[in-house]
């Protein structure tokens, strides 16, 4: 407000004032539009600048990761990369009454977990736990206690 006051001291209208003159009305319109435009143009400048900065940072990151992938591919093509040691495949022992679909789902969940932690996990056995909470109950408890 102080900025506006110093720019247009004669433009302060009393709320109860009526019969506003043509000059006053015109200056309200011009001042209003100019201030709104200046404010938003300032924002355009700021947002564009930081948008460009982050865009270039992201692009350079992308370029780096692309270059890394390409290099790996090139090395693989040359045969210089030693293939990872094969993990001996021991099929997990599955308790009776658990269908193949369930085992597949558990294996997929374990695979997803291993991706998140960066480790390789192996499914060794699948057996039903007795007396434990059902997965729905566990999910419910997790949902309700997460914020605390």
């Amino acid at each position, binding site marked *: 407000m102080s900025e506006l006051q110093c720019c247009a001291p004669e433009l302060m*209208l009393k*709320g109860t004032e009526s019969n506003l003159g043509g000059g006053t009305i015109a200056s309200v319109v011009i001042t209003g539009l100019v201030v709104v435009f200046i404010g938003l143009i300032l924002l355009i400048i700021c947002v564009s600048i930081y948008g460009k900065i982050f865009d270039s940072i992201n692009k350079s990151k992308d370029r780096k990761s692309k270059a890394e992938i390409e290099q790996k591919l090139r090395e693989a093509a040359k045969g210089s990369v030693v293939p990872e040691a094969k993990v001996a495949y021991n099929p997990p022992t599955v308790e009776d009454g658990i269908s193949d679909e369930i085992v597949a789902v558990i294996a997929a969940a374990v695979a997803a977990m291993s991706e998140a932690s960066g480790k390789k996990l192996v499914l060794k056995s699948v057996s039903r736990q007795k007396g434990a909470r059902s997965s729905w109950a566990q999910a419910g408890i997790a949902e309700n206690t997460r914020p605390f």
Partner: protein
Amino acid sequence: MDIINSFLNTMADLASDSGFAGFLKDGGWKNIIMILISFLFMYLAIAKGFEPLLLLPISFGMLLTNLPFADMYHPEFWEYLENVPEKTGELNSHYIDYERILQHGGLLDILYMGVKLQIYPPLIFLGIGAMTDFGPLIANPKSFLLGAAAQGGIFFTFVGAALLNMTAAECGSIAIIGGADGPTAIYVSSKLLSKTDTIGVGTIALAAYTYMALVPIIQPPIMRALTTKKERSVVMGQLRQVSKIEKLIFPILVTVVISLMVPSAAPLVGMLMFGNLLKESGCCDRIAKTAQNELMNIITIFLGVSVGATTRADKILTLSFGKVILLGVIAFSIGTACGILLGKLMYVISRGKINPLIGSAGVSAVPMAARVSQKVGQEEVPTNYLLMHAMGPNVAGVIGSAVAAGVLLSIVQV
């Protein structure tokens, strides 16, 4: 015999104290009209789905306040008094006796304090901020220009109101309807209007929300009239991906820039951006959810019902109400036209890359105005998706109307 007499007297007293008798008193018929209008608004909200979340509380507040002798709201408590406080010794011509309101006020008087003290609109903005994705605006910052242009409606309507010989406070309050932003309109009018003005906050709020609900009817004819088929058929390219850090910086930046430039816009812009920061930070999910849902809903109820309460028959059934309705629709139309015209200019400058239809979304009315742009665009090219492009000017319009509100509050002194 005495018993019968006393019974009859008591019944007569009860009848004369009842609301029915109130309708027969001087000017009581106006209350009946207002109650019927409140039924109409309830119908529009429930059956037609016109902004029901606000129109229904407003219309019920309207019903409650117009029931004679219910005394839930007292307009006389809210009239400005002249007072010389002992501490300052200076005359205060805008004094409200809050002690009296707290002691003798009805339920709606107490709730209305949140409007008069400008508490509810910034809190609504907090919720809006927590729900808004500024991504499309950050991806295409030029949208800010369209959001600014659409505020033209506000300032050109100021001219119209001034020509109708209204006071500066009334001009500012009516003009802000052109911003198509309910909370902003309530914020400005509750600050500016006083007992000498012929309109009240309720009138302004009613007009603003009615027109916001009518956006899909008011805007398309203007959009079609001002654009050519070729312009409407422009298919815009995909927006760039915006990173999380950009979204985090945005609310802080806008708050600092706008609040330094127009300090009177700080409560609205500040809370809007605070809500958005809560959402984007990702570490305050609980608070962000509360701001989006529970807090927003509570404030909406309080705001709606108490603003509805200000629509007392004696205050609203005046010639000025007609003026507000007329100038409100003009404000809206000019805002839409200004956005479209700047959109056309950007179409020319960008050599046909920008579809001018997204300009009309610069009037706030989120997300309705953006949906209208999308719909009108699809009438020409069914596979054209303008929605995300229109969301940029749409959210820029919210910031723009808050800035315009700040400017009006700086120019018109209470």
